């Protein structure tokens, strides 16, 4: 891999304007080169092979490919009618599709490329900080992202700032001609008392060649700040998606993060929430639904570093055909983190005998006065439920799809953003061939 990416990196660096960024990216590229792509020999990658990524040469997208892609902008458009939106096609910012005018006071929403000009000092600090982070030194994909990062979302909410409508970050991809890689880099900061609802969505159209999205997103959630985060991964069927998501929480901050993973041939998310000041509360909800030969890997970690924090994590998975999923959920309670209350559950539904789930919920508790629970289940559809439906004349396949939908929909119920909840339910209904969807959406939810 090295020679190809060395050349790519040299070419890339020639276009980098910011003198301060070059050494940071050089250092990151050196780390990436040193580490190379992870292999299944490494514990963290035991069940997920990135061989298919390592064997290809992914080029960086050029503006031309994005403008060609923007012809397909229907799919690149915002999901919600009245949201703020930053839209990227093949990693390249699309001002004509984006909406970030008339922002409330104290709110900055910029594409990273723009922020490097308007807000250079702050962006520089963010990059310096991130290069000091162990992730950039220990995780090959994060280092790779850091080496090539040039675009993404730069979001800053000042003290008590409130974004009254949801913000959508839309990454639409399509490959034309070459295998392409984009390295979205998102920095999102909520100062104390700020409130934000953000939808991070990844969509794509399958082309002849696979594309790869290698994204890194950092959240800093200040004292008493509230973040609702919705991550929707609907990449093209032959795409690769690797992502790192870091959430740092201050005193009495509240974070609710939903992670819906439906697309890509191979996808992996590493999510880490660090509760570093007392009173922080974190909820992680996840749903993955794999089919065909898909492979979806979710690595989550909630780090309780201080006393009196609460967290809960509910991940559900549905696996069909010969697909595979990995769930690794870790809750770390450090010695100081007394009075921690935390629970973790992972429930999986296997629809096929060939589907494989590797699940490992893990509590690591080093404090003695805590309340923690964890569990994982893996099962098939309840045949007595199937029979009950059939005994009323309902088609068996429909019965199975309906029960599968019910299993999945439960985890979407907690999405407060109703429009998004309904859209996601529609996606599931379509995937499960449950027609009459309008009616279903109505009466099934009741």
């Amino acid at each position, binding site marked *: 891999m090295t020679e190809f990416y060395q050349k790519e990196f040299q070419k890339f660096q020639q276009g980098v304007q910011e003198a301060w960024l070059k050494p940071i990216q050089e250092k990151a590229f050196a780390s990436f080169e040193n580490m190379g792509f992870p292999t299944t020999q490494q514990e963290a990658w035991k069940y997920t092979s990135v061989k298919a990524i390592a064997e290809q040469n992914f080029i960086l997208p050029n503006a031309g490919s994005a403008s060609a892609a923007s012809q397909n902008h229907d799919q690149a458009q915002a999901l919600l009618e009245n949201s703020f939106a930053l839209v990227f096609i093949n990693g390249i910012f699309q001002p004509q599709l984006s909406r970030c005018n008339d922002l409330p006071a104290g709110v900055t929403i910029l594409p990273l490329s723009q922020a490097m000009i308007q807000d250079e000092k702050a962006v520089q600090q963010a990059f310096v900080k991130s290069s000091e982070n162990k992730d950039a030194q220990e995780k090959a994909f994060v280092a790779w992202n850091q080496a090539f990062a040039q675009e993404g979302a730069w979001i800053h909410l000042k003290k008590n700032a409130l974004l009254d409508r949801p913000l959508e970050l839309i990454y639409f991809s399509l490959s034309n001609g070459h295998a392409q890689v984009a390295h979205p880099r998102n920095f999102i900061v909520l100062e104390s008392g700020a409130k934000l609802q953000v939808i991070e969505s990844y969509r794509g159209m399958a082309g002849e060649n696979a594309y790869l999205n290698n994204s890194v997103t950092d959240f800093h959630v200040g004292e008493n700040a509230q973040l609702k985060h919705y991550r929707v991964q609907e990449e093209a069927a032959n795409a690769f998606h690797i992502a790192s998501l870091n959430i740092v929480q201050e005193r009495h901050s509240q974070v609710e993060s939903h992670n819906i993973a439906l697309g890509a041939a191979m996808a992996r998310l590493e999510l880490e929430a660090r509760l570093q000041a007392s009173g922080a509360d974190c909820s992680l909800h996840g749903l993955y639904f794999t089919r065909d030969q898909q492979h979806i890997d979710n690595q989550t970690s909630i780090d309780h570093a201080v006393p009196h924090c609460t967290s809960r994590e509910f991940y559900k998975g549905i696996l069909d055909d010969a697909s595979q999923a990995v769930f690794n959920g870790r809750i770390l309670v450090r010695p100081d983190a007394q009075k921690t209350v935390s629970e973790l559950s992972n429930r999986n539904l296997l629809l096929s005998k060939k589907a494989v789930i590797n699940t490992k919920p893990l509590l690591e508790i080093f404090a003695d006065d805590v309340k923690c629970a964890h569990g994982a289940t893996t099962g098939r559809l309840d045949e007595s439920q199937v029979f009950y439906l059939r005994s009323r004349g309902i088609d068996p396949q429909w019965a199975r799809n309906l029960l599968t939908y019910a299993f999945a929909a439960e985890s979407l119920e907690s999405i407060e953003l109703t429009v998004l909840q309904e859209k996601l339910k529609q996606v599931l209904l379509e995937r499960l061939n449950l027609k009459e969807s309008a009616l279903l959406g109505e*009466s099934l939810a009741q």
Partner: protein
Amino acid sequence: MALLEIKNLHTAVKGKEILKGLNLKVNAGEVHAIMGPNGSGKSTLTQGIAGREGYEITQGEVLFEGKNLLELEAEERARAGIFLGFQYPIEIPGVGNTYFLKTALNAIRKEQGLSEVDAMEFLQLIKEKMKLLEMDEKFLKRNVNEGFSGGEKKRNEILQMLVLEPKLCLLDETDSGLDIDSLKIVASGVNSLRNSDRAMVLVTHYQRLLDYIEPDFVHVLKDGQIIHSGDKELAYHLEEKGYGWVLEGKAS
């Protein structure tokens, strides 16, 4: 032609023979009660007729309207007009009661060559039936049987039966878990369906149910066979004297 005819039926569950040569003939318009001690095979009979998997027919035949019922899948039997009221109705979280029942009704109507009912028509129909069973309309918005009390579940079974209007109603211990008021309501629901085209088979432990739903025939099922049949008076004798009385051959 009988609506349902069971000839020398042998059924095994997990390799163990439960029904051992059962014969039963049910004509349209008739109500049959099947009584018998625990483990005699009552539920095996009803679940088997409804087409539950795992009930292996080793011998004999079951004819419904003269056709071989055993060739049909569970959903095909339901569409042909067979309804099983479950002893333990299944809870289905995440699936709305209204949606479920409307889907079922339309599956059956499709089989009959009828057009689908739309949401408005259906709502009207179901509300009318719920009134008959004195069910609160809040059940429309609940998930199928989820969190229902035992009595509510049984009423929900009868509600489904009223909506689907089957030809053959198999009611498996519909009376168990019902207080006397609920029993009366459920019975009046069942009675409202009685007509000359429809037949009912009630499986019960107690004569009490038969005070409200009067059977034409009462059968005693023991060890996988019907060992005695009679009219409704038989139920009183059983209540009074127990099954031992039949076994000892004193019934004749």
